[in-house]
C-alpha cells in the first residue's frame, strides 16, 4: 500500500475514534426519577408495601423530591381497618421507624395500580387528563430507579391477584422508553419470587437490572411482627435498606459494586442476580446516588471579586465562582420536603447544565466521517 493511502486511512480512523469517544467513567444524567411499585393487595402482603415504603424513604432522604417519585401502592395498608397502628407502616418489628411518615404522596393507589397503568406510565401514553403528579416526565438525561415488589414467578409478576405483567412486556416498554429518549440510564430492581427471570428479556442498552432470586427459587420474608400479625419486610429489601440506611448518605461516594458485594447469600437466603451486559459503565464507578439520590457534583472555588455561574464542563460539573471570603458550602441542597417549587430543581434541570456540546454533534460528525472514508480511499488509490 502507498504511504499516502496509509496516512489517509490512519487519519480517518483517528477522526472516527475522536468523535466517538465518550467519557464513560462519569455519569451524564442531570435529574433523577424513581418509580416504586408494590403490586400486591390484601393484608397478608403487608411486607410488600413496607418494602416499597422503605425504598421510598431512602430515596427521599437521598434527595429525590416527591414530584419526581411515582409511588404506586396497590392497597391501603396504613389506614386499613386491620391495622392496629393507624396511619403507620413499620418495616421492622421494633416499630422504631414509621415508614408512612407525615409527608407522603401516593400517586397511584388501590385499583389504579394495574398492568395497563404501569405500562402507560413508563411509556408516557397516559390518558389526556392525567394530572402531572401521575406522569413520568423524564427526558434523555434522566436516571430512573424502577423498583418492583410483589408476588411473581417465572418471567412474570402478579398484579393485585388478578393479572400478570410478563418479562417480555417489561422489556418492550423499556425499549419504547429508549426509542422515545425517556431515560439516560435505568436501574431496575425486582424483589419477587424468581425475580431474576423478569429482566431476562430486556434488550435495551443502558439498563442495569437486579433481581432478588434465581429462577425456580423464592424470595423469603425476613421476620414478622406478632402484633401486626404478618411478615413486615422481605429479606432482599431488608439487607438493601440496611446498607442504604447505615452506609449511604447524600455525600456518599459508595458505588453499586459496593452494594452488590454486600449481598450475602446466607443472609438473604436466595441468590440475587445482577445483569450488567446492557450497562456500559463499570459498576465500580457508578455511584449509588446516581440512582437512589438526586445529587449533583459541585466544585466551589474561591475567586477574587467575581461571582457568576458558568456553563458546565464536559464532565457535567457545575462550577460556582464566589468571592474569596465566602466559606465553602457543599452542595447539594436538594432535600425532600414540601416541593411545590423547589428552586434546587432549577439548578439540576437540563436547561442550565445541558448536554456536553460534543455529544450533541457526534452523530453528524460520525456520518461525515463515514462519507469521507470511501472518498479518501478512492483518492489514495488514484
Amino acid at each position, binding site marked *: 500500500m502507498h504511504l499516502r493511502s496509509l496516512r489517509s486511512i490512519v487519519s480517518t480512523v483517528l477522526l472516527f475514534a475522536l468523535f466517538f469517544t465518550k467519557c464513560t467513567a462519569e455519569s451524564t444524567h442531570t435529574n433523577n426519577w424513581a418509580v416504586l411499585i408494590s403490586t400486591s*393487595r*390484601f393484608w397478608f402482603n403487608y411486607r410488600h408495601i413496607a418494602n416499597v415504603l422503605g425504598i421510598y424513604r431512602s430515596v427521599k432522604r437521598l434527595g429525590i423530591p416527591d414530584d419526581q417519585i411515582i409511588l404506586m401502592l396497590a392497597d*391501603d395498608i*396504613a*389506614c*386499613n381497618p386491620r391495622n*392496629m*397502628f*393507624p*396511619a*403507620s407502616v*413499620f418495616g421492622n418489628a421494633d*416499630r*422504631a421507624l*414509621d415508614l*408512612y*411518615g*407525615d*409527608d*407522603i*404522596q*401516593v*400517586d397511584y*393507589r*388501590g*385499583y*389504579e395500580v394495574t398492568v395497563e397503568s404501569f405500562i402507560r406510565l413508563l411509556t408516557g401514553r397516559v*390518558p389526556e*387528563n*392525567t*394530572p*402531572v*403528579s*401521575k406522569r413520568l416526565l423524564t427526558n434523555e438525561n434522566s436516571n430512573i430507579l424502577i423498583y418492583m415488589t410483589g408476588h411473581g414467578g417465572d418471567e412474570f409478576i402478579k*398484579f*393485585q*391477584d*388478578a*393479572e400478570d405483567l410478563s418479562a417480555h412486556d417489561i422489556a418492550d416498554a423499556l425499549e419504547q422508553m429508549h426509542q422515545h429518549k425517556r431515560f439516560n440510564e435505568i436501574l431496575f430492581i425486582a424483589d419477587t419470587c424468581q425475580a431474576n427471570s423478569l429482566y431476562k428479556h430486556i434488550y435495551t442498552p443502558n439498563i442495569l437490572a437486579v433481581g432478588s432470586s434465581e429462577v425456580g427459587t423464592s424470595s423469603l420474608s425476613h421476620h414478622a411482627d406478632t*402484633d401486626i400479625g404478618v411478615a413486615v419486610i422481605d429479606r432482599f429489601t431488608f439487607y438493601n435498606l440496611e446498607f442504604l440506611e447505615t452506609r449511604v448518605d447524600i455525600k456518599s461516594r459508595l458505588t453499586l459494586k459496593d452494594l452488590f458485594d454486600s449481598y450475602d447469600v446466607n443472609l438473604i437466603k436466595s441468590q440475587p442476580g445482577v445483569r450488567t451486559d446492557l450497562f456500559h459503565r463499570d459498576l465500580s464507578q457508578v455511584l449509588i446516588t446516581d440512582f437512589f439520590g438526586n445529587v449533583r457534583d459541585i466544585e466551589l472555588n474561591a475567586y477574587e471579586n467575581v461571582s457568576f455561574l458558568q456553563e458546565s464542563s464536559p464532565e457535567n460539573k457545575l462550577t460556582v465562582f464566589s468571592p474569596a471570603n465566602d466559606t465553602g458550602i457543599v452542595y447539594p441542597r436538594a432535600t425532600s420536603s*414540601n416541593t*411545590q417549587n423547589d428552586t434546587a430543581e432549577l439548578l439540576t434541570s437540563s436547561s442550565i447544565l445541558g448536554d456536553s456540546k460534543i455529544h450533541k454533534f457526534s452523530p453528524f460528525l460520525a456520518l461525515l466521517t463515514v462519507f469521507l472514508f470511501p472518498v479518501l480511499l478512492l483518492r489514495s488509490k488514484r
Partner: protein
Amino acid sequence: MKFFAALLLCVRVCWGFVRENYGELLTVKPLTSKHVLSTFEFTIDVNDLHDSSTDDFFDPGYTIVPLQIARLIKENQVAEMHLRFTRGRWDVELWGEIPKQGLSSGGTGLELWSYMPVERDNLHWYQLTNQLSGIFCASLDTIDSTNTYQPRLPLQAKVSQPNHAFYFAALPQESVCTENLTPFLKLLPCKTKSGIASLINQHLLFDTNWHSLSLDILPSNEGERTDGANVITSTQIVITIQAVHDVERRLRRPDKSVFYPPEEECEHYDDNGDRDGEHGKDPLTCLKAIRSPFAVHFYDFFGMPPKPSCPLSTNEHDVLVVGADKQSEAWYRLSDGRLQDDVVFTTLQQRHPDLVRADYALTNYGNHWSGISLMLTNPQPKNYTATAMSQLPWFAHSYLHTLQVRVNDTLLPKEDVLCQIAYRPFKDRVHNSFLELQFLLPAFTSVKIITDFEKSPIKLHEYPPDANRGFDIPPAIISIYDNTTLHSTLRTTSLLLSLPTPDFSMPYNVIILTSTVMALTFGSIFNLLVRRFVPLTHDKT
C-alpha cells in the same frame, strides 16, 4: 415576624389589588363520656377569585390563597365546590346532631359537588376531577359518566348563576389516609409550622371513630359591588378537619407505636380461679353506659408540642375549648401559653333519642333479586319535609314500579307521602340509576322507602381484583327541611352489594381446552392424510 405579616397585609389592602383574609379556629367539644369532637377550621376570604379582569392567574398577587386552588377554580369555571373525605359513622343517638348541619362533612368515602356551567360532554367536570385527583392523591379519575349526576330537585346554590348546575359524584370505597391529609395541610398559609395545624397528628386523626376532611369553596354576592344580583363578589375557601376521638383509647396509648391492651376492669379472679365479686370490682361497672368522665391536658390530648399561633391569622382567638357541661366556653390564643394548663373534658353520657335518624339497608333475597330500604325516623313533635338522594350502580337494575312506601309499618300509596320524584334510570355501562325523592316526614313517624333491584351479570374484566368483596353503594343523602329552610343534612352508611362472581379461570380453561382439541383433531387428520406406510426392503444376500 407577626409585625411583618401584618405589614404585608396592610400593603396589600392599601394597594387595593386583592384583599385576602385568613382566620383559623380549633374547637374542642365533649360529646359523651368517652368521645370528644375536635374541629379544625381554616377560612380564607378573597375578593377577586372570580373576577374575569384578572385573567393572568400566573401573577394574581395572592399571598394566602393557595395557587393550586385558585387556578383550579379559574380554569374550570367553578362557582361553588365541596370536596369531602369522610370515614366512620356519625352516631346520631350517642353524639347528637352532626356538626355544621352536615354541610362540612360527607358520606363514607369521597364526595364531590361542583357548581359549574353545564356542558354536553362534561369536559370541565372531568378536567376538574383529574386535577383534584393529582392534588389530593385520590382516585378521583375513576369518576366517569357512570357515577356523575346532576341533581334535579332544587338544591340551593349560594349564588345562583345562569346555565350553571350542580355536578355530583361519590366514591364510597375511597380510603382516607395520610396522603390525603398532607395536601390539605400544604394548602394552608402557615402549613404545620405554626397555628392550630401544628396540632394535627395523623396517628391521632386516623385512629378515631369518625373523621372528615373537607374543602369548601363558597361564593357570596354581598359586599360593596352591586352590579348584579348574580355576580360573585367574594369567595370563602374553607378547609375543615373534624374528628371524634375516643379519649379512653387515646389515654391508653400515649405512644403511637406501642399498644397496651385494655385493663381488665370488669373481672376479678381470686386465688382459687373463681370469679369473686366481693373482692373484685363491680362487674356492672363495665356494662353500664355511664362512666366517670375522663380529663386530659390539652397538649397531651393532641400529642404534639406547643407551637405559636399562625401570624397570618386575623382571628382574635385560635382555640375554643368547651367544658364538660357543654355550655361553658374558654377562648385561647395558642401563643399566650394559657393552654398548657387547660384540660379537655369528656362529659357524662347523654343519649340523644330525639333527633331525626336515617337507616339504610340491603334486603337480600339471593343471587338474583335484592332490595334497598331507606328508613327515616322522626321522633320529634315537628313536621318536616325530607329530600333523599340515593344511587345504585348500573348493574343493579332497579325498577321504579317496585317502590313501596311504608309509614309506621303500614303500606301507603306513594302519592300520599311523596311530593316529588326525580328518577334517572340506569343504562348499562353508561350511567347509574339515581333516585331523588321529596316527601313529608310528619311528627312521631318513621317513613320507610323500599325498592327492589335485580343483580345483573357483568363482564369478566369489569370485576375489581377483589371481586368477592362486593361493590360499594354510596350512602343516601337526606336533607331535612323545616318549611323550606334547611334544618340539617343526614348521611347514611354505605352498603356492600355482593354480586355472584364467575369462575375467573374460565378464559384460561377455554383456551387450553380448545387448543388441545384443535391440536388433536388437526394432528390426527393430517397424519391420516399424509402419512404413508412404506415397507422396508431387505437386500437378500
